[in-house]
């Protein structure tokens, strides 16, 4: 139970992917103008994170380690995730056109997004990279971490988009309106999330 809480807290709050690790900044700044699209992006990223971890973790553990080709992990993971997203897009288009209409445009955008690649890189080996203790890793924890990393990502996306939507209502100096104020907003969100880093797991 302790490990479970530690993983969830680390993924969502203390080591949030956007605010603490600065992964996935492109969707964070690019798709956060509207809450609906930000939520869609967050769900798509979460789905791809979980699926990518489900595929790459066994491949790393049962294929790459026995063959002693661990040093090829980044390039291999990019290979695998990219093709996985390709297949996922086709499957969703066939199985659920409604879901494809809502999420389909985001899937090609996050083919090997740094946040997705980051999850798959962090969960291999032991848990020291996630919760700071050298506990043994297994696929269950890996998928759990991927799921909650996605939840944390979605959370920050929704906070950001909500603030940007509200900011539209205020008169802004010309030099600040648009993208510059989005950067300032991002800065404040990251500072707010720094508070969570004092939680000791």
């Amino acid at each position, binding site marked *: 139970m302790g490990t479970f809480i530690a993983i969830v807290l680390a993924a969502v709050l203390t080591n949030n992917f956007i605010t603490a690790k600065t992964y996935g900044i492109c969707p964070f700044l690019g798709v956060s103008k509207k809450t609906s699209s930000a939520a869609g992006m967050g769900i798509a990223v979460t789905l791809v994170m979980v699926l990518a971890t489900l595929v790459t973790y066994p491949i790393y553990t049962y294929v790459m380690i026995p*063959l*002693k*080709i661990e040093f*090829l992990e980044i*390039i291999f993971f990019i290979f*695998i995730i990219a*093709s996985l997203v390709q297949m996922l897009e*086709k499957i969703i*288009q066939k199985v659920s056109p409604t879901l494809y209409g809502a999420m389909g445009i985001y899937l090609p955008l996050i083919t090997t997004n740094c946040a997705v690649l980051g999850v798959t890189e962090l969960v291999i080996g032991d848990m020291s990279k996630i919760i700071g203790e050298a506990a043994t890793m297994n696929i269950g924890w890996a998928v759990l971490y991927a799921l909650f990393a996605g939840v944390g990502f979605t959370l920050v996306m929704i906070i950001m988009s909500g603030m940007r939507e509200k900011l539209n209502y205020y008169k802004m100096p010309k030099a600040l309106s648009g993208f510059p104020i989005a950067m300032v907003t991002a800065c404040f969100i990251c500072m707010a999330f720094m508070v969570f880093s004092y939680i000791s797991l």
Partner: protein
Amino acid sequence: MNLLEITNQTWITVGIVAGIFAGTALLIGILILVVGKVFKVNVDEKITKILNNLAGANCGGCGCSGCSGFASKLANGGAELSDCHVTSPEKKAEIAKLLGIELKDEEPTVAVVHCNAGNQNCEDKFEYKGNPTCASNASLLGGNKACSYACLGCGDCKAVCPENAIEVTDRLAKVDPDRCISCGACITACPKDIIDRIPASAPIYVACSSKCKGKDVMNVCKVGCIACGICAKVCPHGAITMQDNLPVIDYTKCTGCLTCVEKCPRHIIISRKVIAEETPAETA
């Protein structure tokens, strides 16, 4: 098993790594191909053809999510071709041929703002210091203009216009008829409902939306319609009728003689010919 310790020679090691990647790429390629074959989606060719003939403005004026949504709705019979105001009549004829329906004759339309008040002619009821959008201004006692039918001039229509056809000067929105594609985005966005479509060839339009009686309009606006009915009387073709204290123009009867424009004591029937005569090709 250590793949890389098969040989000590560097170039063979490189070859092995390259081989691993080639093998993986081949495997993944075959996998994607298989998935692609199994989950193939048959895209309706008709929809693609319809989409190619649509204007592609993605303005959302038809109420669908972009032109592709409209195309699939057209193919399923869920939408009418007349819902799209952007596509040219020639292209619409092509689509009608594809759909196997007959195209009704439609005249191209443009949007106009039925108000001519601005800051000079209509004063403010109170000072408004809220969000600079018409929607939030209108939610406070119907906006801060003295006339409750006046253009608030905060530019909600300008913000949604996909063609930048709307200019807001002196708190009055004006539509540039040359740029307007009649998508209807501004008509939906306007909280006062004072933007409407008129035929693109219309010689005149009424620049007031006030349904109030003459005296009430006199009190708040220098150029509002006072419902005197002179225009309806002087029109030699009977094209103007009075409805709800406002003149309604029947554009099928209007010949563009501009008698009403001359006789209107408030100058709110505005001639659009002035715009047309600037271009030498148009001689009315």
